[in-house]
């Protein structure tokens, strides 16, 4: 999979002050399975992911996914979003629906699939992710990790072109974190490319093929995971890796 961004510009207005996130962001990255977006908080990782998810519209610039340009008019974005899967930081399941109904919703409503077929597909998906025991539970009855796994099932059920994860474990306890991270690692078997914003450096190291390192709205470094962690090109990246390592070990 290839993602190419050219001259991306994005700014936000917070309390009547304009905050520029990217002034001119360009990159091109090719990967087989997993691309990890790393960097300090506020560096623009999540915004970049949200642009890829069709949830934010850049002020200028273009993004191409596998040679196809994302059209940022609302109507095209609506169809574009149907082709991809997103897993958010908080699990974001619909609280009035059971786990099974949550997973079925994209099939029955967006793809207009017959209820019985959608149910069968959703049950199969939940079984694959070892969630059958929880399929009739509502989100508040699930643990954080289980909820996030159901959210992953909901994103996967439509067989998306690619999957986006926005810090999927940052609101979880350590034990639940490993449960979700293990699942994400297993998703390789689905052969769906994934873009992952994460603070779990060790996980990115084990799981990702390519890494993009963002700071202050710029790509500081990018490369294959192996090279990226062993030979940090910039001083900034070296400091970042050291600080996270120290943090992870403490």
């Amino acid at each position, binding site marked *: 999979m290839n993602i190419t961004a050219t001259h991306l510009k994005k700014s936000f207005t917070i309390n009547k002050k304009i905050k520029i996130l990217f002034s001119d962001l360009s990159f091109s990255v090719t990967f087989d399975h997993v691309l990890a977006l790393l960097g300090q908080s506020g560096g623009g990782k999540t915004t970049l992911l949200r642009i890829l998810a069709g949830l934010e519209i850049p002020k200028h610039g273009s993004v191409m996914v596998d040679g196809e340009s994302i059209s940022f008019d609302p109507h095209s974005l609506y169809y574009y979003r149907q082709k991809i899967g997103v897993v958010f930081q908080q699990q*974001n399941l619909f609280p009035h629906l059971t786990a099974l109904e949550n997973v079925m919703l*994209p099939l029955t409503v967006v793809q207009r699939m017959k209820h019985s077929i959608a149910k069968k597909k959703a049950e199969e998906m939940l079984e694959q992710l070892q969630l059958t025991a929880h399929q009739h539970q509502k989100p*508040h009855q699930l643990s954080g990790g289980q909820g996030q796994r159901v959210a992953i099932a909901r994103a996967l059920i439509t067989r998306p072109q690619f999957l986006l994860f926005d810090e999927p474990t940052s609101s979880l306890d350590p034990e639940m974190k490993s449960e979700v991270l293990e699942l994400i690692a297993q998703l390789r078997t689905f052969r769906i490319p994934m873009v992952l914003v994460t603070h779990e450096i060790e996980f990115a190291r084990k799981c990702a093929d390519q890494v993009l390192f963002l700071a202050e709205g710029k790509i500081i470094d990018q490369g294959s995971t192996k090279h990226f962690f062993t030979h940090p090109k910039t001083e900034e990246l070296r400091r970042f890796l050291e600080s996270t390592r120290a943090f992870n070990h403490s």
Partner: protein
Amino acid sequence: MTILKDFLLKELRKNRTLLCIGFLLTLVIASMACTLVFQTSMRISFLKWNLVWHYRTVFWHGWLETFFISVMALMLSCFFGTAIATIQRSSIKLLRFAMLLVIEIIRGTPLLTQILFFFYVVAHGIGLQNRLITGIFILSFFSSVYIAELIRASIEVIPKTQWESAKAIGLTTFQTYWYVIIPQALRPLLPSLAGQLASLIKDSSLLSIIGISELTLAAQQVNATTYCTLESFFPLALGYLILTLPISLGSRLLERKLKV
């Protein structure tokens, strides 16, 4: 005094037994007051239920009229309320502002004033002669503004992440409302909506001022003919309770059913 009040309130919140005792005490006092009223009226003259029974059809027709007005106004006000709430969420600023103005005018004036104004000024102006239809519309408009505010508030409490999630899985705005927002908004909305609908029924009594022969006017007429105050107004209260109690009971049942 305020210290004592604060203390009592705090204690009440803390202690449910105190709350129960308070409730029982109120009940005892209320029943004593009722007995007193009954005894006094018994002493003056024996209750003339038979005289009022004679006018049962007047009550019955009045009650039917109230029932009809309430049902029509309930449906219309829910419809107008949803429409107003939708306009309030529209992206056109001018439309939102105009709606806000209407809301403030209706909320800032008493219902009685609105009834008089709309009946004698607006309805006469546009040549609408039917009192009943005018009454139903006035009541619906008044109530719909409050219902719109309830709808707006119950939609606003739904976290932004739910909208985002719905958008991300590819739902349209309509689908988002239908499958995600409305089912979640209903639970906080129902109790307050039931309260609003019950007060709409009670407010319909004010329509007697423009001569709509609903329950209150019927009771007033019976009282004027028979001079039996208690016997005339007791069925009046009962008639309204028959309409309002099922609403609050029904809402409680639905609320339990919709519990997350």
